[in-house]
């Protein structure tokens, strides 16, 4: 008990320490930016002093040199006149000789000051323009602008480190959900693309090294609205550093990192529990799922692709037979392990002699016709073209199809530019590492309930998945509509309070149209989460309790209708009992007065 109390008391202290540390880092980075501004000011000293001196000498000379007034009497220019003449002369405006025509001695002096002052102005303006072009000055300005934008964010945002292909996909799908993100990338060009790209919301971006904790802090790591950190850079070490910084400065934040090697993934696990996404590993898992349960795989890819996605075709991969895997790199290794775990026979074709854990190895170049003949493609049921060269992969697919038109092909696409070629080949299972990572990050962060659903769904079997796909297509058609979460709390569903407590609240009763209760709402409840326990695809008789979280899939109109039922007391009353209850205060008072007579109530509701 005492330990518990200590733990509870200890927490805020820890939080404060963490927050302080983050602020310190952010301040250091901001100070770095202002240091550059000070440097600029220092560099402007010399031009400004030259300008002031030239002006002072010119003005002083004009006031000292005697002139003549219109009648030939002696006249000296006052300080104001001299300053006026110098100002318009130095800036090359040249109004002429004011207030009276100058004498020759005055004109000589003005000639000297013209040349002096033009040189002075050119020097000052030239230095100022050079400073504006200065790289360090511009990056300091960009940093200040960026940190101001981030600190003004007042809604939850995602911190994306690395805005390559994957980062862009993640940023875009979150933007479409109406969520905000902040982007860090080394490459200025990618940051410039943020402004060119058609993001709905304003996405603050900074071209800076995300390995620098100061840059992460400026990008909002210490911001109370930061909801998650995603490390998607191409550099494994950088991703590890980002995970470390996030775990040490904000231990409570969810972190997702892209990895390609298991060692880095294990090193990341040492820092809290970041979620790591290995594209090759995941593709192997997907392929296994596709082999074992095509419908479950179909459902998974459909839901992961996000709103608006077409229902993918259900593949029919061969469940028995021999597979040929070209390339035994990171992908090949994962796939061979997964395929063998499914009890399939595997032949590996690899240029370098390797030991493939007991699988048949054929050493040779996959594009060599002789090697292809040796691989015995016409008796294979599946082919994996997993080299890191798109041209090789495409020609391997073509060769495999020629010798065996019905063979199942799984191919890795390396460069986004080749996407149309792969699409034309009609590949059975296409691996695009960037997209696998992006979908995974999306599924984990967009709605944690969806992630829960996707993780537990394969365990329920193939038939269940087929039924689920059928139900979803009945409600949504072949395009995935919106997914949304409903929390049955007093805040989000105030109308449901007493009904939920009564215990007789069923899901089927709730899913009725508030316009016409005979019509069921076109929505599918994918999962209900109650105190950490998830119930997948609850049926109509499922009893709801206060505090339940439900993930629905359906059309946007259905979502609006359901939210009406959840919020408006009268709508819920109608949906449950068929009685129309007046919703305005005055009508409610009136109907309460009439309530004693049952006839009147019936009359009011008709």
């Amino acid at each position: 008990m005492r330990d518990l109390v200590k733990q509870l008391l200890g927490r805020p202290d820890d939080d404060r320490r963490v927050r302080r540390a983050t602020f310190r880092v952010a301040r250091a980075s901001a100070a770095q930016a202002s240091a550059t501004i000070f440097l600029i000011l220092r560099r402007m000293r010399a031009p400004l002093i030259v300008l002031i001196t030239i002006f002072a000498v010119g003005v002083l000379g004009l006031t000292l040199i005697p002139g003549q007034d219109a009648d030939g009497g002696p006249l000296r220019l006052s300080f104001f006149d001299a300053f006026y003449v110098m100002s318009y002369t130095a800036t090359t405006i040249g109004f002429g000789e004011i207030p009276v025509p100058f004498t020759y001695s005055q004109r000589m002096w003005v000639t000297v000051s013209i040349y002096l002052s033009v040189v002075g102005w050119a020097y000052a303006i030239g230095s100022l323009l050079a400073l504006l072009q200065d790289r360090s000055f511009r990056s300091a300005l960009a940093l200040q602008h960026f940190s101001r934008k981030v600190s003004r964010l007042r809604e939850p945002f995602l911190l994306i480190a690395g805005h390559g292909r994957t980062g862009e996909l993640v940023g875009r799908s979150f933007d479409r959900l109406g969520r905000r993100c902040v982007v860090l990338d080394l490459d200025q060009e990618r940051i410039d693309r943020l402004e060119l790209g058609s993001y709905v919301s304003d996405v603050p971006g900074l071209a800076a090294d995300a390995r620098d904790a100061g840059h992460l802090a400026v990008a909002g790591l210490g911001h109370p609205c930061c909801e998650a950190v995603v490390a998607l850079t191409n550099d494994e070490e950088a991703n590890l550093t980002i995970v470390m910084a996030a775990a040490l400065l904000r231990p409570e934040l969810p972190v997702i990192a892209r990895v390609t090697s298991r060692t880095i993934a294990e090193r990341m696990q040492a820092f809290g529990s970041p979620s790591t996404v290995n594209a090759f590993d995941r593709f192997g898992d997907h392929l296994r799922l596709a082999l074992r349960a095509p419908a479950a795989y179909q459902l998974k890819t459909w839901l992961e692709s996000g709103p608006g996605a077409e229902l993918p075709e259900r593949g029919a991969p061969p469940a028995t037979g021999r597979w040929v895997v070209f390339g035994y790199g990171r992908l090949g290794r994962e796939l061979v392990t997964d395929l063998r775990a499914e009890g399939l026979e595997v032949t590996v074709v690899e240029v370098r002699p390797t030991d493939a854990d007991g699988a048949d190895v054929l050493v040779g170049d996959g594009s060599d016709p002789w090697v292809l003949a040796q691989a015995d493609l016409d008796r294979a049921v599946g082919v994996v073209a997993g080299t890191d060269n798109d041209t090789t992969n495409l020609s391997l697919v073509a060769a495999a199809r020629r010798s065996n038109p019905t063979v199942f092909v799984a191919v890795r696409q390396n460069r986004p530019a080749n996407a149309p070629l792969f699409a034309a080949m009609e590949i059975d299972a296409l691996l695009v590492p960037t997209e696998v990572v992006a979908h995974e990050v999306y599924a984990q962060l967009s709605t944690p309930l969806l992630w829960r659903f996707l993780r537990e769904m394969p365990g329920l079997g193939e038939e269940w998945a087929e039924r689920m796909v059928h139900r979803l297509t009945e409600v949504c058609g072949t395009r995935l509509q919106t997914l949304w979460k409903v929390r049955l709390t007093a805040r989000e569903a105030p109308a449901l309070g007493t009904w939920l407590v009564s215990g007789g609240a069923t899901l089927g009763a709730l899913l009725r149209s508030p316009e016409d209760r005979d019509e069921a709402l076109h929505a599918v409840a994918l999962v209900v989460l109650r105190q950490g326990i998830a119930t997948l695809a609850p049926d109509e008789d499922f009893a709801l309790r206060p505090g339940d979280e439900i993930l629905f899939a359906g059309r946007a109109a259905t979502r609006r209708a359901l939210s009406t039922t959840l919020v408006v007391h009268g709508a819920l009353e109608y949906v449950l009992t068929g009685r129309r209850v007046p919703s305005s205060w005055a009508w409610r008072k009136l109907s309460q007065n009439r309530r004693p007579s049952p006839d009147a109530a019936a009359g009011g509701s008709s």
Partner: protein
Amino acid sequence: MNLEKVVFGFFVVLAATLNFGFFIGDISDPDLHNPYELFAAVVVNLVATVLKFGDRTQIGAVHLATSLVADLQLIGATLLFGYATHVSSAGMDESWTASVVSLSGGALLANVVSVVLLVVETVSFHRD
């Protein structure tokens, strides 16, 4: 000896002495206050201000602030002077002179603070 410090000290002290030179004398007697001295004070003050740009220390910030105050007061004084000689029908009479000189007196105070800061900085440097 640091040449930058010499130049800096020179301008700060010169700004104060020129300012003092203009200020001294009967406040309402225009003959005792030479406009060239005011002009020199403005120019030297501006140069001193620019020299103080870009110092990030606390004392540097206060230095810059005092200089800006002195500039403001002196430029105000020259504006009044220009108005009195060119626009006002009375010309540089006693009351106008008094206004100009009292403004420069305010600037003198700011310059004195600046000199004190300079001395403090120097003394504390030697103690270290």
